[in-house]
Structure formats: structure tokens, C-alpha cells
């Protein structure tokens, strides 16, 4: 059978599937709602890069000397600009700890007796910060806020000391160059401010297309098999390849529509900026689909009915979603998870998508990923297509 006939039949199958989709209101609604739900969900669950404000913190001053009062006054001045913390005084450490246990405050500053004395005697003035780390997210934020605040205060103190020392010895000094001789000048790949969505959006696009196609293939094929309409196509002089290509093309169209929705939401609702070539991004999506479609076809060929086909696909899809580096950078995973993520096509597709969309990478920059994805696709398809043919004429 010649190629033009195969492609023509594929087109007819695709057109038929899309017409069916158009007539099915429920599927249409799901098509639009799924990406919307995903984005909004992740948008509100995951940290967006801005630090939480007004975290309740306790203060216990066991010193009550001039030094500690000065320290607290400074702490409050520093915090005024940012309002990261809200302070609340407690008379004893035990009171403060009870408040932590009741969840009223996230942590407590404990200034020990003798704090002021240490300052006047030129010793280091130690104090304790007791943090509730049963909530790692806010514990981490408090530590961050704490270290910037304290280093800011140390900085101010050091500047004053240096200026004083300079005037005592009659030497003109620049306290800044004395205290911080090294100043990093940080520049980022993506100009301007970025947020978690910049990281999430490209990966999410490819993931939604993957889910669309992977769950769609077993569904689309077994539905027709069970309805009996498959017999109509297969008793006509068309290649089984046309059925696969046509159905995949219809699912791709669906996936692309969802991608456009994601892109629109990401740009207009979450302020994601796209740097790269959109056409290249869509080419990458297509390649991504090619790389994992074989797995979907294998699933349906081996299972026979819709329920078990969908189950196999879900079983495969979940690890892919989480290990593919869509939500968390792979580099932050333990080594064995990283190893698994190396054999998941989604990893490469998501990586390439991010590079293209955020870093304006050209086709040459993502050649490795492209080659790996093509290899994935070719290998899985060579296994899947004969399996599919056999399962069709069982």
C-alpha cells in the first residue's frame, strides 16, 4: 500500500475523530478545563518565589539591659521595611514554647541574660533562635529572613565600629570596602524577575500533551473496538498504520489546543515571559508525542480492553510526571531517582522545552535531547506497531 493512500486514510480517520470530539460537549469541556485546573492548582500550591510575610515570631528578653533593648529596636526597624515578621513578647522561654506548640508563633528569639554585658565587654553577643521545623517550608523561610536580617544588623554594627576606629586613629576609611571587599554582581539568564511558573509552564505543556495522548490512545482504540466500529475500518482496504496515525494526529490536535490554553494562562495570569521560538517549541511537543506514543500503543495492544489499558498507562504515567523534572528540578532528587529519570523520555522533552522557551535555545542547543527522543520513539514504535497489528486480528 502506498504512502499517499496511508496518509490520506490517516487524515480521514483524524477528521472523523475530531468531528466526534466536536459533537461531544463533555469531552470538549474537559479539554479546556484540564489545563486550567492544572495550572491554577499548581499555581497556588507551590511556592511562587515571594517570601511569606507577617510570620508570627516570639521575643523573650531575659537580659533587659541597654544592649538588648538596642538590639530589639534595631530588629524592629529592619523588619519594618519588609514586614516579614510580626513580633510578640513573652516573659519566659516556656511560655514561648507553649505558644509554638499551639501553633501561634513559628519561632522565638531568646536573648539570654548577660547579652548587654557581653557587648560592652567586647565579647560576642550570642542569642538563640528557636524554630518550629515541623513545617519545613516556613522554617526555611524564617531561617532565610533571619540570616538576612541578622547579617544586615551585623553589617550596620560593623560599619559603625569601623568608622569609630578610623576616626580614633585618624585614618580616612571606607567601611564598605573594609567589611565587604568582595562584591558579586549577579546576572541571570532570564532578564527580569522570574517565578516558579517560568520553570513549570514548559514542562507542564509537554506533560499535558503526554497525558492527553497516552490516556487518549487506549481510550480511543478500545472504545471503537468495543463498539464494533473498528471492524468497519479494518474490513476496509486501509492500513492499520493509518488508524494509528489518524488517531494520534487527532489526539495531537487536542494536545496542541491544550498547550495554547496553558501558554495563554501562563502568560496572562501568571506573568510568564516567553523568550524562545514558539515554532520550535511546538516542534518539540510533536517530537515529545512521538517519543511516548509507542508506550501507549503497547499498553493497549497488550491489555485488550479499555479499563486495563488505561490502568497500565496510568501506572506508567505517574512516575513519569514526578520524575520527569516537571515540578522539581531533577538535580535536587536523590541519585537513584535521578537514574530513573534518565530513562524517561519526558525528562528530555521537558528539559528541551524549558531551554527553548526560557533560554531561547536554538535547535542546535537541544540536539542531544532531540536525538534521544527520536531514538526513544523509534524503539518503542518498532515494538508497538507489530504488537498492535497482532492484537487487532486476534
Amino acid at each position: 500500500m502506498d504512502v499517499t493512500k496511508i496518509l490520506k486514510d490517516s487524515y480521514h480517520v483524524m477528521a472523523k475523530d475530531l468531528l466526534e470530539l466536536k459533537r461531544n460537549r463533555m469531552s470538549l469541556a474537559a479539554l479546556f478545563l484540564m489545563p486550567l485546573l492544572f495550572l491554577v492548582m499548581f499555581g497556588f500550591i507551590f511556592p511562587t518565589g515571594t517570601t511569606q510575610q507577617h510570620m508570627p515570631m516570639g521575643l523573650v528578653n531575659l537580659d533587659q539591659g541597654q544592649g538588648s533593648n538596642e538590639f530589639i529596636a534595631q530588629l524592629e526597624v529592619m523588619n519594618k521595611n519588609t514586614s516579614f515578621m510580626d513580633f510578640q513578647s513573652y516573659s519566659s522561654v516556656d511560655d514561648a514554647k507553649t505558644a509554638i506548640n499551639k501553633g501561634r508563633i513559628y519561632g522565638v528569639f531568646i536573648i539570654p541574660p548577660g547579652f548587654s554585658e557581653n557587648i560592652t565587654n567586647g565579647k560576642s553577643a550570642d542569642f538563640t533562635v528557636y524554630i518550629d521545623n515541623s513545617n519545613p517550608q516556613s522554617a526555611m523561610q524564617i531561617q532565610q529572613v533571619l540570616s538576612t536580617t541578622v547579617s544586615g544588623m551585623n553589617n550596620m554594627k560593623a560599619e559603625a565600629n569601623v568608622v569609630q576606629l578610623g576616626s580614633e586613629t585618624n585614618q580616612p576609611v571606607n567601611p564598605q570596602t573594609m567589611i565587604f571587599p568582595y562584591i558579586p554582581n549577579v546576572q541571570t539568564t532570564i532578564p527580569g524577575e522570574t517565578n516558579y511558573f517560568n520553570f513549570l509552564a514548559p514542562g507542564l505543556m509537554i506533560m499535558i500533551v503526554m497525558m492527553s495522548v497516552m490516556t487518549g490512545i487506549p481510550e480511543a482504540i478500545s472504545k471503537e473496538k468495543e463498539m464494533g466500529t473498528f471492524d468497519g475500518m479494518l474490513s476496509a482496504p486501509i492500513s492499520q498504520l493509518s488508524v494509528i496515525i489518524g488517531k494520534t494526529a487527532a489526539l495531537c490536535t487536542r494536545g496542541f489546543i491544550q498547550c495554547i490554553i496553558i501558554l495563554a494562562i501562563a502568560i496572562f495570569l501568571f506573568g510568564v515571559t516567553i523568550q524562545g521560538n514558539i515554532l520550535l517549541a511546538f516542534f518539540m511537543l510533536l517530537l515529545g508525542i512521538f517519543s511516548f506514543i509507542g508506550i501507549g500503543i503497547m499498553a493497549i495492544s497488550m491489555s485488550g480492553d479499555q479499563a486495563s489499558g488505561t490502568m497500565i498507562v496510568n501506572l506508567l504515567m505517574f512516575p513519569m510526571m514526578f520524575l520527569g523534572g516537571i515540578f522539581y528540578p531533577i538535580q535536587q532528587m536523590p541519585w537513584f531517582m535521578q537514574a530513573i529519570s534518565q530513562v524517561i523520555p519526558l525528562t528530555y522533552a521537558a528539559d528541551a522545552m524549558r531551554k527553548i522557551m526560557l533560554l531561547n535555545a536554538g535547535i542546535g542547543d537541544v540536539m542531544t535531547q532531540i536525538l534521544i527522543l527520536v531514538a526513544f520513539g523509534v524503539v518503542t514504535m518498532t515494538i508497538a506497531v507489530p504488537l498492535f497489528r497482532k492484537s487487532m486480528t486476534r
Partner: protein
Amino acid sequence: MTKNAIEIHKLTKKFGNFTAVDNLSLNVKEGEIFGFLGPNGAGKSTTIRVLCTLAQPTSGYAKIAGFDLVKESDRVRENIGLVAEKMIMYDRLTAAENLRFFGKLYDIPKQKLEGRIDELLELVDMQKWKDTQISKFSTGMKQRINVIRALLPEPKILFMDEPTLGLDPQTTFSIRDIIRDINKSGVTVILTTHAMSEAEALSDRVAIIDHGKIAALDTPENLKKLVSSSDNTVFGIKITNLTSELIEKIDALDCVTTLAQQDHHNLKISANGTNAMDRIIDTIRQEGGSIASITNSTESTLEDVFLAVTGKQMRDEASEKASPAHHGHGNAPKARVR
């Protein structure tokens, strides 16, 4: 000399260890209407699926319209039309959209296809419904579209698996008329049915298959002679106080080959042996049955043949609801899918 439209040679289809079609050999002549009869699960649909290239034969071979079933499956598909057990139609598409889609798969040129669609809709009197979605159709309307869908590519051979299942008498007759008409225009028709009268009325030859094997194959007339000849007697008997115990007693007699309960009082019995009638009447009297009348069937029907060659046992009892008859007639109404 007439050519063969279909040549089947030792065709076997197994599902795992289960043999659905067992070493089947037969020829269907060009221009014939060939009926497949057989109890539920006999392997009729499986045979048709194999012949339509929808299932791979386990062994054996077949030629359809002169092409090898396996090696030239593409050529086979160009020459066949299929009306399957399940209707081949998309509910969300209109009648015309369905016909158009399948027509395109046969590479029919656009203009010719549109003409053909109108022509066929006319044939089944469905022009009005051309642009209505299938989901709004009744079973009969659906089946009419389903049948003309198979006729779109002008096939040489038409396979029809229970084409009149679940249809009212009007639609049944109109479908039968269509079958006769297309047969007259030269199309070979392979038909399965559980309606004996349908097989008898339509088929040039009938094969009764059971357990995947041919139990009998001949013209309906010859098959009937097979049963009514020899010392077989078929008669109807009316018993006013008919009970199921009595039926069992009669059935247990070794001279009784088939027994069918027709209603509350009437039995149809076919029996073997010279004094069979006497023995049956004696048994009924002994059991206290009162005979109201006895009618001698002058001629046996295809149904008698069917029961005689396939036996009295009901097939896959679990999946099919028994008909009111004491013995499964086989034509218990079963819902068509979709």
C-alpha cells in the same frame, strides 16, 4: 461452470485452547445466497470475522473472490462488504457523515460517493434522515444505514451476521428484499441467522454448523427431506393438562428426537421408529395426560432439521436467556448492541 466466490479449506480458529472454528471446508458459489445456521457459540461469527480478515486463522486457508485471505488481505478487503453483529456506526455523526467516512476509506471519488450515498439512502427510504445524528435513530433505522454502509463500495461479496436481529417485521422484510435485490445484481451473500424461516426463504444453500464443524450442508429442500424421510415422524399434539413433568417423561423416550413446546398446550414432536407414535401416546395416557388433538405435520421445517442435527442441548446456557420453548429454539430475542 460457475466460479467459487469463496473457497475455504480446513480453516481452523482457536482462542487459546478453545477451538471456535474446527477444520472447516466449504465453497460458496458466485451469485449464491449462503446461509449459516447454528446454535449460539457455534462459531458462525468467528468464521465471518476470519473471512473478513478481522481475525487471523490459526491454520488452513481461504480464498475470497480469488484472493488469498492472509497473503492478499488488502485485495480481499476491496471486494467485501460487512454487516457485523454489532452495528458499525458512530453515534455522534449523522447518517451522511458515517457513510462519507467509510466511503472515503474505499477511495471512492467524491462526486461518485455523494451520488452513491443518495442512491442508497433512497433504496432504504431514509433520505429524510440524511443529516440526522445516528443517536436519534431507532434500531430499525440504524440497521438500514448499517446495511447500506456495507453496500457503499459495491462489494462482490457481502457478509451479513444476523442482519435482522431485533428488527420489527416491516424492517425485517425490507432488509430481506434488499438482500434479494443485491443478490440479483450479482452479489454473493453470506448470511447468518437464527430465524429459520429467513434462512429458508433467502438461502440457496444452508450450512448448519455446530462446535465449529459443519453438521449439514445442502439446499433447504434437501435438508428437509433428510429429516422427513426414513422412519421419522413429525407431529403436533395438544394436551389440555400439560405439565413440565409430562414433557420430561416424553422427552426421556428414546424414540423422541426433538421436542418443542409451542405454548401452554401444544407440543411439536419429531420421533424415530415405526411404533414411535404409539409409544408416545401410551406414555401420555399413563401419566394421566388428556390428548385433545393430534396434527400430523406433512412436512418438516428447517427448524426440525436444525434440532435434529445439532441435538437438544442448549448452548452457553449462562449467557443466553432460554426461549419459552422447552428446548432452545436458538432464536431467543437478544438485544442488539448499540
